[in-house]
């Protein structure tokens, strides 16, 4: 197919009709500013070929101009060796008319026109090959995948892959042939799917392989348990045999009797030894008593001897004490009879001194009366009642009454009378004291008193000396001496020294006898070490006896328990299952091996088939790649491309490096997308089913160099098939050797 002319009226921004009347077979360029309506023209083109004239709803509304109107498109094109015109009126008066321009005949209308158009252009279940070659604005950046809605970018059946497959029918048939390989692959995958979880390569839960694996695991653990039971059983049997033998030993009547005899013998020997030990203890105690008794006898004899000496001593002391006592008594009497006690002597001396002083004081007084009795008149004058016998000077201390008999009395009153009276009284007092003391002392005067006092002191001294001696002789007095002496005498009277000495002799003999008895007893018995050894042996034998009994009891209990356990195991034959379980395990392992063999074979089959199918696909993708390569090398010299089996571009290979499409830069992606479309268009052209390549505002991200390279590629492609480039960048495509399209008004008729 090749476009010749395009016209539109009442279509979106074209309220007025517009026409492109000469579209060349090679490269065409419609360059114009924004808002010129390039994309509207692209849509009008799509509307003519791909949208049924009866379309309605949003789609129809999308076609209508803003001011309203009924959209009309008309395209002249060449296809199948003829020139055609399709005219579609949308909305009110909707219709489609297909006219053969060569004959000028209307070939078909409405639905029939649509159907024939579809045949001519190779559209059908979708845009088909047109979809492969007509690239909308903004679509260029997306991967050039097939059967993708250009608006939403989602997968949509557009017949594009089918168009390619149809084109490559021969290769595809040769490759895929009958589809038998795919069928077998599906069978193999289904079969493997019974065993393995798809994708994760693990056994499918509860699938036969999984079940076999589990059965093998169960068989293994059963076998392990059975082996444990068997081993335990074996060990238990060995233990039972050992214990049975041991119990026989323990219960052996001969060895038990032996032990009993030994215990009896030891008991007897030890009892005898024990009796001897008791005798020894008694002899030792006897010896001790004898020794004490002998000691007592010795003490008594010593005491008697001591008492004898003491008695003599006491007697001597008593007589001395008695003599001293008499002397003391005598002296004491004299001493006591002597009134010139030192106290009195001192009082006397004191009183004498007072008296003298008072006398002198009285004599010192001024008032005196000298009396001189006339001869014969002695005594006639009485001074204070005392007859004056001779001349005397009389002091008047206070007053002095002179009585002269028959004459009267004269009272002399001293001015110191008072004082004198007092002194006088004191002198008299002293005098009286002196007199009393002298009297008491039994002396007439002071001299005597003094002598007597000295005598008394002398007696005292002698008395003290005697008393000292007395105390030496009889410190506790004569009475005590006498008592002691009388006691001793009593003792003495009782003690018979000879008898005591005999008793001591007897005691000593008893000690010797006891000593001998003890020593002989000791020599007869066993010594302490031996005794300890023997009692130790007896204890050991008794313990051994008890231990054997206890061990026999415990052994027979243990045996009973073990026999019971073994009987339980034997009853079920659990210990004998090892061989059977070994067989089961072998069976289980065989099953696993079988499945694993099958799984390995299936995997190999699947991998081999998948690879073969893939290789064949690669082979039928070859034409696509080959169609693309001439253009590719102009933009990306030395590069290669890889397609998936859905004809979608997978990667660009440069210098041996494989780059996923998605990882490429914007510019590279849009260039590749265009190149792939060019490849598709080239392939269609080469296979005599040409389709024009229509690019709406392409290569917006490309730098000048790449743009020029792309233009060169497009120029070359333009020699093989028709290309229409719509762009707003008038200078960008100067390198494009293109026929410039222009818009002309169109009336719609």
């Amino acid at each position: 197919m090749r476009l010749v002319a395009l016209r539109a009226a009442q279509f979106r921004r074209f309220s007025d009709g517009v026409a492109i009347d000469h579209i060349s077979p090679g490269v065409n360029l419609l360059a114009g500013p924004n808002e010129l309506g390039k994309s509207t023209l692209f849509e009008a083109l799509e509307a003519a070929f791909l949208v049924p004239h009866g379309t309605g709803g949003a789609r129809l509304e999308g076609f209508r101009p803003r001011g309203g109107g009924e959209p009309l498109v008309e395209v002249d094109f060449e296809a199948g060796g003829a020139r055609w015109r399709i005219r579609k009126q949308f909305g009110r008066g909707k219709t489609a008319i297909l006219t053969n321009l060569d004959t000028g005949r209307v070939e078909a209308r409405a639905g029939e026109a649509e159907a024939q158009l579809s045949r001519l252009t190779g559209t059908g279940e979708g845009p088909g090959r047109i979809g492969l070659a007509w690239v909308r604005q903004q679509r260029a950046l997306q991967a050039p995948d097939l059967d993708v809605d250009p608006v939403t970018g989602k997968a949509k059946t557009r017949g594009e892959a089918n168009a390619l497959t149809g084109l490559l029918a021969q290769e595809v048939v040769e490759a895929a042939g009958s589809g038998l390989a795919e069928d077998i692959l599906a069978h193999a995958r289904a079969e493997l799917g019974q065993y393995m979880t798809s994708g994760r390569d693990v056994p499918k839960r509860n699938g036969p392989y999984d079940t076999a694996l589990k059965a093998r695991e169960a068989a293994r653990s059963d076998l392990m348990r059975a082996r444990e039971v068997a081993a335990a059983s074996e060990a238990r049997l060995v233990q039972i045999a050992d214990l049975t033998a041991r119990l026989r030993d323990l219960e052996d009547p001969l060895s038990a009797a032996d032990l009993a005899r030994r215990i009896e013998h030891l008991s007897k020997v030890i009892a005898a030894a024990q009796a001897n030990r008791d005798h020894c203890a008694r002899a030792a105690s006897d010896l001790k008593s004898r020794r004490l008794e002998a000691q007592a006898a010795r003490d008594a004899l010593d005491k008697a001897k001591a008492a004898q000496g003491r008695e003599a001593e006491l007697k001597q002391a008593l007589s001395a004490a008695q003599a001293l006592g008499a002397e003391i008594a005598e002296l004491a009497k004299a001493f006591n009879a002597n009134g010139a006690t030192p106290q009195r002597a001192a009082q006397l001396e004191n009183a004498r001194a007072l008296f003298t002083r008072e006398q002198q004081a009285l004599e010192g007084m001024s008032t005196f009366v000298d009396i001189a009795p006339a001869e014969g008149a002695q005594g006639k004058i009485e001074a204070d009642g005392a007859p004056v016998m001779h001349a005397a000077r009389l002091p008047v201390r206070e007053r002095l009454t002179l009585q002269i008999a028959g004459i009267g009395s004269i009272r002399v009153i001293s001015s110191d009378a008072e004082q004198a009276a007092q002194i006088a009284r004191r002198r008299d007092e002293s005098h009286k004291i002196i007199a009393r003391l002298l009297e008491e002392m039994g002396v007439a005067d002071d001299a005597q008193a003094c002598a007597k006092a000295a005598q008394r002191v002398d007696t005292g001294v002698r008395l003290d000396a005697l008393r000292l001696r007395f105390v030496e002789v009889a410190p506790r007095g004569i009475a005590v001496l006498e008592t002691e002496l009388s006691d001793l005498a009593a003792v003495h009277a009782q003690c018979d020294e000879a008898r005591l000495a005999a008793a001591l002799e007897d005691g000593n003999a008893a000690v010797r006898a006891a000593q001998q008895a003890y020593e002989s007893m000791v020599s007869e018995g066993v010594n302490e070490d031996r005794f300890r050894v023997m009692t130790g042996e007896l204890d050991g034998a008794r313990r051994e006896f008890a231990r054997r009994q206890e061990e026999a009891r415990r052994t027979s209990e243990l045996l009973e328990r073990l026999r019971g356990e073994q009987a339980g195991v034997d009853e079920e034959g659990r210990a004998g299952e090892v061989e059977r379980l070994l067989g089961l395990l072998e069976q289980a392992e065989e099953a696993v091996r079988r499945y694993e063999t099958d799984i390995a074979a299936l995997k190999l089959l699947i991998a081999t088939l998948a690879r073969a199918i893939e290789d064949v696909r690669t082979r039928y993708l070859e034409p696509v790649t080959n169609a693309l390569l001439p253009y590719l090398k102009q933009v990306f010299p030395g590069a290669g491309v890889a397609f998936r089996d859905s004809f979608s571009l997978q990667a660009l290979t440069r210098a041996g490096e494989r780059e996923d499409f998605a990882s490429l830069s914007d510019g590279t992606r849009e260039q590749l997308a265009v190149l792939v479309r060019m490849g598709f268009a080239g392939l269609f052209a080469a296979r005599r089913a040409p389709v024009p390549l229509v690019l709406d505002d392409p290569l917006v991200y490309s730098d000048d160099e790449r743009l020029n390279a792309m233009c060169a590629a497009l120029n070359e492609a333009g020699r093989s098939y028709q290309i229409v480039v719509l762009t707003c960048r008038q200078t960008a495509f100067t390198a494009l050797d293109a026929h410039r399209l222009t818009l002309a008004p169109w009336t719609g008729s």
Partner: protein
Amino acid sequence: MAFRFIHTADWQIAKPFARFPAQLAGELAAARVSAIKRIAGIARGSGAAHVLVAGDVFDNDRLDALTLRRALEHMRAESDITFLLLPGNHDPAKAGGIWERLVRLGLPGNITVLDAARAHAVSAECTVLPAPLTSKSPGRDPTEWMADAQSAPGQIRVGLAHGSIQGFSSDGESTAPIAPDRAARAGLDYLALGDWHGTTRIDARTWYSGTPEPDRFPDNDPGNVLAVAIEGAGAPPSVTVVRSAQFTWIKREVMLADAADITALDARLSGLSPALASVLLRLRVSGSLTLADAAALRQWQESFEGRVRHLELDDASLSVRASAQDLAIAGEDGALRDAALALAEISNDVAHSDSAAATRALQMLYAFAAKVRQEAS
């Protein structure tokens, strides 16, 4: 008057056969117990009142009580026959072992357990000298004592032992080596041996009876008992081999090259035995078959399995090749042809680690292709 007895051994009652399918295992195990009845019948037929079992009466010494009771009951039922049982290496006479348990369960009057190396008077004219094993591997000749064993003059002396004759090839299991000239040295009229499962004559007076019921695919002649008659002390024994087996175990190897070989194989195997249904067959195939022929072999196997009691087909040594004709199944399908060729190449390369898997994969491919074709038609 001649002393007649049956010499048998290696009953191995309760052998599990667990690697066989459960039902077959059960039948094989049952056949070992029912052998008691068959042996008793043979004894009656040959005028013998005694069955001497030369060890391994039981497969192992820890069997369950029910199995033991069942065996005892089978013997008790043959009340006119006396069974003399000797402990072997599978059922040695140990403390707390199987023979003590049997005694506890209550031995029928017609069973004598010979668990001590002591002369045992069987009848007025015959003394049996048993050599019981007391452990799995005694490591000594248990028959040594027989030379010194006294018996009344004129008595027939029959030795009963379990072990391998020195110098005689065994399966290496026994460690009870028996002097080959024991019968002569111990003045035995007959030495009845057990342990070797095939019936074997060592000399005129020394025999292995073999097991009465085969228990493996044999290299020798199992499945018999010996009917022995001795006219008197010193007289040469008369030994008759009598078939006692219920199942026939057969091992065959065959090399296959094409479909014709398979047909021939079928004819040969069909004539193996009139009682194919009691045959257990192990068939080892080698050679090389095309995919189509391998599929035919598989088909033959499936049909023949129904005719014998058990068939084991070991095709580990069989190589399968994809012939041009086989590959025609791919038709015009390039991918399928490529895959089949790739697999055939790996399969033919025996050094390749996936060689076996590739062979199997080829067979699968072939089978799947047939199936797809069938579904399509």
